[in-house]
C-alpha cells in the first residue's frame, strides 16, 4: 500500500491540452474515484498514473518514489481495464499468475497465490478455462484476480463495469468495494457513472474539460456541490436549475415563478441574478404551494419521477409516495428552503 500524490500534472497531444495542471493527494488505503463526462481526461489521468501515457508536465509520486517517467512495469501497480485485457491464449490460472511468472516467482508460490485470489473471487472452478469460455462477469473477476495476486501498492480501475449488464454491474460494484475493504490497497477508480462514484468512493474527484471541479467525500459533493457542473453531475436524477433573481425575500424566476429561499440567504442576496438549484428528491407533493401541470410520469414502483410545467419552468420531481398522477394533471409541490442551492449566474460557483 502507498500514498499517491499527483502534482500539477499536465497532458498535451500536440497543441491540444487535455489535462491542465491537476493536483490530487490520495491517502494510503483510500478508495478514490475519478468521475466526469466522456472526454474530461479521467482515463488519460489514470493511464498516466499507470505509466501507459507519457506525462507532459508535473509529477506523480507513489509512496516516496517519483514515478512520472518510470516504465509501467516498475511502478508496482495493477490495473483492471474496461475490456478486461485478459491474455486470450492463457487459462484463468495462467492469466492470474503471469505477472508472478515474469518475476520468476517459484511455481508453487504462484499456485498458492493464484488459488488464494481465486477463492476471494469465487473463481476456483474456472482456473482451467480460457477467457473465451467465461461470461463477462467472470472475465471481470479474472481481471481483478490478476491484480490481486500481484499484491501491488496501488490498484487502478479503468471503467471496469461499463461492459456489464445493469444487474451484474451492481453485483460487481459490491464485490470491488468488499475486496477493497478486505485488502485495503490504495485504489484509483475511473468511471463516468456518478452512482458508482457515490456508492464506492471514500473520496470523489470530479473532472471536467481537463480541470478538477471539486474533490470531496461523496456526501460532501452531494450536499455542498462547488458549482453548477458538480451539482448537475452528482445526483440522479439531476438537480433542477432555474435562472432568476432574489427579490423581496423570495426567488423570482425569469418567467415569473416564485420559489422559496431560506430567510438568511434571501436577506443577503437581494437583487442578485442567481441560479436556483433544487434536487428532484427534495421536492414534496402537497395540497398547496407551487402549481404545475404534469408533462411526464415515470413510475418505478419505489418512486415516481415526474416533470412539471410550472409557469413555463420545467421542474423535475421525485416522489417516494405513490400517487395516481397522469400526464396533464395539475399538482401542487412544496420546496424545502433548507435544501436549496444557489449559484452565481456568471461564474456558476456556489454561493
Amino acid at each position, binding site marked *: 500500500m502507498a500514498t499517491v500524490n499527483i502534482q500539477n500534472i499536465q497532458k498535451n497531444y500536440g497543441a491540444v491540452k487535455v489535462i491542465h495542471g491537476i493536483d490530487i493527494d490520495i491517502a494510503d488505503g483510500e478508495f478514490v474515484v475519478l468521475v466526469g463526462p466522456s472526454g474530461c481526461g479521467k482515463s488519460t489521468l489514470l493511464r498516466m498514473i*499507470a*505509466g*501507459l501515457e507519457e506525462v507532459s508536465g508535473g509529477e506523480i509520486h507513489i509512496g516516496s518514489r517519483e514515478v512520472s517517467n518510470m*516504465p*509501467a*512495469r516498475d*511502478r508496482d*501497480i*495493477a*490495473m483492471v*481495464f474496461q*475490456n*478486461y*485485457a*485478459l*491474455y*486470450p*491464449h*492463457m487459462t484463468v490460472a495462467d492469466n492470474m499468475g*503471469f*505477472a508472478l511468472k*515474469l*518475476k520468476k516467482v517459484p511455481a508453487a508460490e504462484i499456485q498458492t497465490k493464484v488459488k488464494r485470489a481465486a477463492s476471494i473471487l469465487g473463481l476456483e472452478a474456472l482456473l482451467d*478455462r*480460457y477467457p*473465451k*469460455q467465461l461470461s463477462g462477469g467472470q472475465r471481470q473477476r479474472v481481471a481483478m484476480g*490478476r491484480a490481486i495476486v*500481484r499484491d501491488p501498492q496501488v490498484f487502478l480501475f479503468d471503467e471496469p463495469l461499463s461492459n456489464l449488464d445493469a444487474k451484474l454491474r451492481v453485483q460487481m460494484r459490491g464485490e470491488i468495494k468488499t475486496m477493497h475493504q478486505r485488502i485495503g490497497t490504495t485504489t484509483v477508480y475511473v468511471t463516468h457513472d456518478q452512482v458508482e462514484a457515490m456508492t464506492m468512493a471514500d473520496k470523489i474527484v470530479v473532472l471536467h474539460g481537463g480541470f478538477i471541479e471539486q474533490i470531496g467525500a461523496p456526501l460532501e459533493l452531494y450536499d455542498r456541490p462547488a458549482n453548477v457542473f458538480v451539482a448537475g453531475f452528482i445526483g440522479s436524477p439531476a438537480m433542477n436549475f432555474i435562472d432568476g433573481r432574489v427579490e423581496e425575500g423570495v426567488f423570482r424566476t425569469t418567467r415569473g415563478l416564485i420559489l422559496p429561499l431560506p430567510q438568511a440567504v434571501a436577506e443577503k442576496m437581494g437583487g442578485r441574478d442567481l441560479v436556483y438549484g433544487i434536487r428532484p428528491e427534495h421536492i414534496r407533493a402537497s395540497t398547496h404551494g407551487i402549481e404545475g401541470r404534469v408533462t411526464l410520469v415515470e413510475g418505478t414502483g419505489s418512486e415516481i419521477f415526474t416533470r412539471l410545467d410550472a409557469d413555463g419552468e420545467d421542474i423535475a420531481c421525485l416522489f417516494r409516495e405513490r400517487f395516481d398522477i397522469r400526464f396533464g394533471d395539475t399538482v401542487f409541490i412544496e420546496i424545502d428552503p433548507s435544501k436549496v442551492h444557489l449559484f452565481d449566474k456568471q461564474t456558476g460557483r456556489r454561493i
Partner: protein
Amino acid sequence: MASVSIENSVADAKQKRSRPSRLAPNYWPFVLPALLVVSAVIVFPWVFTLWMSVNSWTLGQPRTFIGFANYVRLAQDMRFWESLWHTATYTALSVVLPLFFGTLAALIFDAKFPFRGLLRGVFVMPMMATPVAVALVWTMMFHPQLGVLNYLLSFLGIGPQEWIYNQFTVIPSLVLVETWQWTPLVMLIVLGGLAAVPREPYESAEIDGANAWQKFRYLTMPMIAPFLMIAVIIRSIDAIKSFDIIYAMTQGGPGTASETINIYLYNTAFAYYDIGYGSAMAVVFFFIIIALSFVLLMVRQRANWSDMETK
C-alpha cells in the same frame, strides 16, 4: 388457440423431419452432375491407380496381376528411400526457412515506417511469378561461370560455388529458390495474424512487468500461432508435392541428388513407362501426405486458442 397452432406446427415439423428418407430418391437428379464429375476426376483415377499398383504394366506390354509385389519392390528400392529422404529434407527446409523469414518480415512490415505499403508490394512480387520462369532465372543466376551469385560472392572473398550442379549443395540451392518465392506468402498470412491480435493484452503485460522480448515470447508468438500453423500447413503441402521448380532446374540431378518422390515417380511412370510400379509409388506417397496433413491438423487444433468454445 395460439397453443394449439404451436402444437400443430411442432407436429408438422416432426413429420417433415421423418420424411427425407422416403423423398431422398427425388433429389438424385440434383446430385448426379456433381457425383459424375467427382467420380470421373477423383474416384476413377484413384481406384485405377490402386488397381495399377497391384499389376505389372509397362506401356506396350501386356498387364499382369502381381499382388503386392510392387510394394515389396518399393520397400527394397534404395533409390526410393533416397528420394524419400530428399523429399523430407527439401520439405522441412522449405517450410522452416520461409516460416522464419516470413515471420520476421511480417513483424517488420507490421511496424509503421515510410514507404511501408510500397515496400510490402515489392516484397510480395516473387510470389506472383510462375515457377518455371523463376526456375529459368535462378538457373542462370546459379551458373558457376556466368551466374550473378558467384559474382556477388566474389565481393565477399568467397570462391565460386557449384550450386545446383553439386550433389551436396543442390537441395539447399533449390530450397533457396523456394524460400525466395514463398516467404512473401508466409509474410502475408502472419501479417494478417498480427492485425487480428488484440492490442489490450500488451498494456496488461506492460503493467504486469513484461519487457519487449517477453511480450513477443509470451503474447505475440502464442497469439499468432494459429496463423503460423496455417502457413506451415500450406507450405508443407506445397513443398512435399513440389515438382515444377525441381524438374525445370535439375530434373532430379546431378545424378539423383535432388530426386524427390515426385520426380522419381514421374520418371518411373512416364520416362521408363513402368506404370504399375509408379502407381504403387503414388499410393504410398498419397498416404504419406494424408498422414502429414492429419498430424498438422491435430497440431493446428491445439494451437488455436481463438477456437475455444464456450462450455
